[in-house]
């Protein structure tokens, strides 16, 4: 969630009263934003000998782009408090009727196909407004625009450039200009090298760097306005004294493009000479049928059912009452004159988050107050309480192992490839383990296929503990399984490890016997037992195993016969000294690991 800093005194002035931190926190809570910090009593930074005034740091829900700046927060809170109503945003063409144009060249489809524009006439900036204007662009770039990949904004002093503008895509070498706050001109290629190490801009270069053409916006005199999504030209940069602002926005995502445009102009048109007026821009883009006038500030009319809203909220409000409450949330709503049970809601251009009537229903609930809603207790259920069968089986084994004196541990499920294979003297046949594409560390390369790495690491980290150490885990491993939709399946394992001055071989063997006994599985030896008709619930036997994980002659495979079907369910043995060395263990270790799923 984005966090926005606003000047406390300025906000309270706009809200018409002072709030204590607690009061303001309560207001935020009810409205659905979160006061993260009030810096009044904190050490605030001193810049040029002046201490920063107290700030309110407010967390904003990720879909409320209209709250990403001071202007939006004050407006929406004032509307929520009933002190203001939603402004009427108006598109006003210039007196001569001649709209500014952005002419889009077809080559832009190769790199960044969409552009949108708007003009704010006779804006009056001051230091705070100017900073907010810059910060909003930054917040939109970071959040909705996904680090400028999807959308990027350029703002210009319109009095330094001349329309019509063109939006083109050209080879980097053919684009030459002095970027923002630079004096020397450079071409697209040089610019990439110049900003390679730049702290802020360096991370955006990849978006276009390897493309044969870069997007660029020119004015009528071939002055470069911007090289989206990297940087603007120095020539047209805005300042505190700029009065006419040209906004151009380029994008990969058409929907987000227009959202960004609407946010920029609705938030800052309150500073134009005639409040809330915006001069539209004509986009000429025949090749992809995107010729149009932007921005589109027409409110969308959505219909919401009174019965649906009342049912979900557990209320019984009239259509008029609901409409009235919705004004607190910056909507204009009225009962439909033609349809019963319907209210017509104008979704203002500021509210990109409203997709469905459920979003309107939520705002009714917020306006009513979540904590004031009549409470009930849903008592009807068609479900019978029941555990997942494999979890029930797991709990039986966990409890038996703990009662037998073993301690349960809970290592991680992800591990390194070596821990899962090489360190256990096991080979990766490429068909076993699920491998991760983008781990941040070596610790998380594969989903474990065995519980042993976690047990051995737990022992390694607990060497100060008295010996013998007896630990176990019952949990899932995962295997590749190309037959399934998800190409993988989990398998529930039980594993235990002994660490002590003796090998503990017969101790883990004893634990196996105990758990098998508790699962009503009878121990049998060899052929003779297999003939035995006195079959218990199931039977198990062990066979000597030659396996590099274990010390030669001291390992066994575990076989279970359940319902007449034989399964090799696992292994136990004294770990090979080379395994101990890899895991940095100084004393002998015996382990046991079985798949418990056949006992389901």
């Amino acid at each position, binding site marked *: 969630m984005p966090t926005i800093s606003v000047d406390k005194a300025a906000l309270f002035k706009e809200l018409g009263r002072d709030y204590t931190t607690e009061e303001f926190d309560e207001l935020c*809570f*009810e409205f659905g934003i979160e006061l993260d910090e009030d810096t009044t009593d904190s050490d605030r930074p001193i810049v040029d000998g002046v201490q920063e005034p107290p700030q309110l740091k407010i967390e904003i829900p*990720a879909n*409320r782009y209209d709250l990403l700046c001071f202007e939006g927060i004050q407006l929406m809170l004032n509307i929520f408090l009933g002190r203001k109503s939603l402004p009427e945003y108006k598109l006003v063409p210039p007196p001569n009727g001649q709209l500014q144009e952005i002419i889009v060249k077809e080559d832009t489809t190769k790199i960044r196909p969409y552009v949108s524009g708007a003009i704010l006439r006779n804006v009056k900036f001051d230091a705070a407004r100017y900073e907010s204007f810059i910060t909003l662009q930054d917040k939109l770039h970071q959040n909705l625009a996904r680090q400028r990949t*999807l959308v990027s904004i350029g703002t210009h002093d319109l009095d330094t450039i001349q329309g019509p503008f063109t939006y083109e895509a050209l080879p980097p070498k053919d684009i030459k200009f002095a970027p923002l706050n630079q004096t020397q001109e450079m071409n697209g290629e040089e610019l990439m090298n110049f900003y390679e190490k730049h702290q802020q801009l360096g991370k955006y270069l990849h978006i276009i760097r390897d493309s044969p053409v870069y997007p660029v916006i020119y004015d009528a005199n071939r002055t470069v306005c911007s090289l989206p999504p990297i940087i603007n030209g120095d020539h047209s940069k805005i300042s505190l004294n700029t009065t006419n602002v040209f906004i151009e926005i380029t994008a990969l995502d058409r929907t987000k493009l227009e959202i960004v445009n609407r946010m920029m102009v609705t938030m800052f048109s309150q500073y134009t000479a005639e409040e809330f007026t915006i001069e539209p821009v004509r986009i000429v883009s025949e090749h992809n049928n995107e010729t149009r006038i932007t921005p589109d500030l027409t409110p969308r009319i959505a219909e919401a059912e009174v019965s649906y809203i009342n*049912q*979900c*909220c*557990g209320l019984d409000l009239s259509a008029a009452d609901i409409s009235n409450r919705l004004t607190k949330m910056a909507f204009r709503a009225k009962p439909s004159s033609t349809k019963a049970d319907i209210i017509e809601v104008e979704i203002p251009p500021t509210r990109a*988050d409203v997709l*469905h009537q*459920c979003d309107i*229903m939520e705002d009714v*609930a917020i306006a009513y107050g*979540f*904590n004031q*809603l*009549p*409470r*009930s*207790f*849903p008592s*009807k*259920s*068609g479900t019978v*309480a029941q*555990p*997942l069968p*494999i*979890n029930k089986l797991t*709990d039986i084994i*966990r409890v038996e192992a*703990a009662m037998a004196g073993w*301690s*349960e*541990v*809970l290592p*991680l*499920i*992800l591990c390194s490839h070596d821990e899962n294979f090489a360190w256990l003297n096991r080979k990766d046949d490429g068909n076993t383990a*699920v*491998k*991760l*594409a*983008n*781990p*941040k560390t070596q610790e998380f390369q594969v*989903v474990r296929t065995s519980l042993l790495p*976690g047990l051995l*690491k737990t022992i390694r980290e*607990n060497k100060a*503990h008295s010996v013998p*150490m*007896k630990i176990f885990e019952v949990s899932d491993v995962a295997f*590749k399984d190309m037959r399934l939709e*998800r*190409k*993988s399946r989990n398998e*529930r394992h039980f594993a235990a490890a002994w660490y002590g001055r003796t090998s503990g071989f017969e101790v883990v063997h004893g634990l196996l016997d105990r758990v098998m006994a508790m699962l009503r599985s009878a121990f049998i030896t060899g052929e003779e037992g297999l003939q035995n008709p006195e079959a218990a619930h199931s039977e198990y036997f062990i066979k000597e195993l030659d396996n590099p994980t274990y010390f030669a002659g001291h390992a066994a495979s575990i076989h279970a016969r359940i319902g007449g079907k034989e399964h090799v369910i696992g292994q136990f043995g004294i770990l090979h000294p080379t395994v101990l060395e890899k895991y940095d263990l100084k004393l002998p270790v015996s382990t046991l690991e079985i798949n418990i799923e056949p006992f*389901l």
Partner: protein
Amino acid sequence: MASDMTAPILDALSASDAPLLSNEAFPSTPSLTVKSALDRLGSRQMIEYEAIDKDILTLTPEGEEIAANGSHEAKVFAAVVAALDGLKIADLPGIVGKDNAKIGQGNAFKRGWIKKDSDKLRATKESIVDETRELLLSVQSTKSLSDSKVLADLKRRKLVTVSKEITYKFSKGPKYAREFVKEETDLTPEMLASGSWKTANLKAYNFNAKGAPTPSGALHPLNKVRSEFRNIFFEMGFQEMPTNRFVETGFWNFDALFVPQQHPARDLQDTFYIADPLHADPPREDPVDDPHRLQLAQTSSETQNKPLDYQQYWDNVHEVHEKGKFGSIGYRYPWNADESLRLVLRTHTTSVSAYVLHQLAANPRPARFFSIDRVFRNEAVDATHLAEFHQIEGVIADFGLTLGGLIGFMEVFFKKMGIHQLRFKPAYNPYTEPSMEIFGYHEGLGKWVEIGNSGMFRPEMLESMGIPKGMQVYGWGLSLERPTMIKYGVSNIRELLGHKVDLNFIESNPAVRLEKE
């Protein structure tokens, strides 16, 4: 026992009602030996005793020499008196020794015992008192000195050293007896057989010490908390969901939940993607032999399951994202099927809730589900973040559910874990609307703490599955680790989950009773 002092102590006391001192009664017995006997007698109240610390002064070799033969100055004086007509200064070292001459001459001058007469020393008194020697003789016999200033001076002059001596002052106790009867340490089968238990004197039990540690296994503290949560769900009639499925598709983990494909949660920075295997299949029926297939209880419902149309579901999800459907305008972006077929480690168990709700759509009816299992986030590891943690998730589906019902349910649910004051904040979540963050008042911390998230699943998600419009579904979730950390004051998540957890912590952690503070 090498030398049992219990009898001599009881003997010594028999003759005296007054307290005795161990260094006087048993001057040659090591004090440790005396002490162990006194302890044994004391634990039976046969005697009482107290320890007395005392400084013991001992003369150094130089001190012993002065005590025996006089101080340096006294020796000089004697030599000067012995020379009838004064003593030549140069001859002094030859007579009394070099050291005596140097120190003694100066001290004798200072005390006015001798004077200098050209190159000779002459006595100014007929006789003197050698105070230093007297003092040291007294220290030698009493081993003490009351004047601390004088003592400090003697220590500085390296004539005495100080050491500690513990002596015990002991006297008869309430159960004093002349004879110390040997005690039995424990009741034995032999005593029972012979009947000697009747006269046996059993050693008194030390009620101030702990008993013998009992060897014990242990369940993991986090799993103990998990059990409590599972019990709460069972008490409230919930069925456990099959979360034994770490690998999910982009479809189930995100698209089915109406999380748009450009959502930041789908970044490489946040989600673990799978390199091998690479591509999933579109959603389809589980194999009939899958032992973990969801088994929904057919209770009172008499309606039949209708077959699930997976292709229709896939198409609905596609459309609701790209163009909008079911009364939603959608996100309006080109939806990419490949993105949906990428494999991920599930970032939440809500992917399984989506799977289960889709199964429920075959025959929509009131139902309650829960799960508590591991989820994965590609986060940088720190004190409060691990790449893995447990998510607790609850789902209630019914016709006509209200938001107030969710609040009411949460109050009952959290009351069962000892949280009695809740409040709800509007929040944002891509797959629930309304969404509420749940805050609980933590008595110990004296503040409101965020304890979970909840909401009603969006119609875009539910109607795509085939859940009818009139049915609402609550979903809520919280991590298992966070409430456990708050409850048990654990500040680092790595002390709770993973191989770095201290085994002693696991073995000593008390039973979990969430309803008790």
